[in-house]
């Protein structure tokens, strides 16, 4: 008897996996369980469009309700799974219901890390869900004092959005510069400059000593001794993988649910994908990483679905992510820290691409920034070169007149 496929987590990854099961030809029961009441929706707009749109935003759903019924995907929202019984092969919900599985996918995602100093404050929030976004948006008003703790992607995108709505913005970053993780200094400098031009105050090398609520706002004491007042503080200091269910079920976990190259956990009938899993990255000799990125969630969701049906294809994608702040678009393919030397290619309109090469000349990563999507084409070509393990000529990489596409043929 066929019990079916069960997916816990209805974000980008889980929802894509559900549809991919059908696209791969699976005909049995598919159950998709999510903690939120909304139909699965895309998260990238939450820090950007949803903050600045003229009209009240709606979640940008991954699929319409009718598509779930057409594809016979049983979406159960507003529900938390409380346990996995591996011997019985079922999942128990909080309300006591159970659903049986042949194969299970954990796409539980990640939750924002909290700042202990902010515990209990009514004016300190984090951003993960659409409902979080609505609450933050409501505070992004002209002249509102907004403090962003953490100069990473989400924090800086929110800073740009808050400025566009006329708020006064201060970014507090504990490290020596913004976007320390995964973004080269040269690119971080461009973003830093752009924020300062817009009047954002950025304070690096600065910690948070304490946070205390006043009647209508919050006082934040910095490691410099300064105290700043804010109408809202958004904590954007990274996210932790949601691994509780997996741990309780005895699956191997580390910084995330541990999976092999097929996205299979230590139980061969249970897979994990997206932000919640740590996986070996084939292009870097099996270096274990966990990625919090939209495209990774999507690709791993689809791959996990195919592998749940027995295809066992290894994960081979090159990590890729982007950020939009003001008119600037940043893209990174690969992990720049794999490179030991950097080659710069200047494009039109001040845009540039950095190619990150290993000691032996292999292209490990590429990062770029420019207006709009100016760097997109070249980053995409770089991604193809990276996945082929190419060793492109550095002189040609640096020469804007040499089409990158011509290097693909080499």
């Amino acid at each position, binding site marked *: 008897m066929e019990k079916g496929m069960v997916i816990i987590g209805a974000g980008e990854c889980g929802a*894509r996996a559900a*549809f*991919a099961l059908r*696209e791969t030809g699976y005909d049995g029961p598919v159950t998709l369980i999510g903690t939120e009441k909304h139909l699965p929706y*895309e998260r990238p707009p939450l820090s950007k469009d949803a903050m600045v749109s003229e009209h009240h935003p709606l979640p940008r759903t*991954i699929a319409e309700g009718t598509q779930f019924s057409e594809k016979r995907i049983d979406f159960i929202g507003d529900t938390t799974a409380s346990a996995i019984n591996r011997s019985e092969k079922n999942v128990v919900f909080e309300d006591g219901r159970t659903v049986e599985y042949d194969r299970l996918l954990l796409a539980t995602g990640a939750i924002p890390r909290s700042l202990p100093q902010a515990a209990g404050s009514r004016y300190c929030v984090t951003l993960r869900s659409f409902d979080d976004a609505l609450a933050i948006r409501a505070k992004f008003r002209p002249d509102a004092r907004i403090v962003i703790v953490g100069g990473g992607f989400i924090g800086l995108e929110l800073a740009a959005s808050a400025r566009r709505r006329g708020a006064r913005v201060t970014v507090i970053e504990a490290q020596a510069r913004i976007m320390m993780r995964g973004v080269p200094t040269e690119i971080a400098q461009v973003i830093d400059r752009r924020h300062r031009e817009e009047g954002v105050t950025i304070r690096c090398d600065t910690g948070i000593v304490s946070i205390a609520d006043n009647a209508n706002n919050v006082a934040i004491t910095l490691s410099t001794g300064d105290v700043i007042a804010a109408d809202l503080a958004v904590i954007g200091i990274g996210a932790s993988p949601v691994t509780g269910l997996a741990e309780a079920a005895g699956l191997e976990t580390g910084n995330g649910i541990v999976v092999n190259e097929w996205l299979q956990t230590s139980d061969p009938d249970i897979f994990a994908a997206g932000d919640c899993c740590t996986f070996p990255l084939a292009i870097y000799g099996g270096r274990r990483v966990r990625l919090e990125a*939209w*495209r990774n969630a*999507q690709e791993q969701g*689809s791959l996990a679905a195919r592998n749940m049906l027995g295809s066992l294809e290894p994960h081979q994608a090159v990590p890729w992510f*982007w950020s939009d702040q003001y008119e600037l678009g940043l893209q990174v393919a690969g992990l720049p820290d794999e490179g030991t030397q950097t080659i710069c290619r200047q494009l039109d309109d001040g845009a540039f691409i950095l190619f990150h090469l290993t000691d032996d000349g292999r292209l490990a990563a590429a990062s770029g920034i420019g207006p*709009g*999507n*100016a760097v*997109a*084409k070249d980053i*995409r*070509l770089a991604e193809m070169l990276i996945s082929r393990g190419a060793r492109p000529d550095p002189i040609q990489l640096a020469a804007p007149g040499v*089409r990158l*596409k011509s290097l693909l043929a080499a």
Partner: protein
Amino acid sequence: MSNWIEACTFDDIDEEDVMRFDHAGRTFAIYRSPDDEFFATDGLCTHEHIHLADGLVMDEIIECPKHNGRFNYKTGEAKGAPVCVNLKTYPVKVEAGKVLIQLG
């Protein structure tokens, strides 16, 4: 019916590439295929209204520069998630080195 508009010249677009063409408040993408044929589609991705002309052309596929949605630019066919709505295409002809598209 014979509303042919000059979009660009033959030499404006490299082989296997794309350019943006704006006309009368609308935006289009004009493609030159690897075998030197020209095609035209709506200029914005059906997923999130991103200009496709910033994307990469590989063979007969245009890929959205932001979310990698893929379309066959000859037929407009959406090639899978995240895009599920096809792209509208327009007839194209080349005359005396000029690329013309027919707007319905």
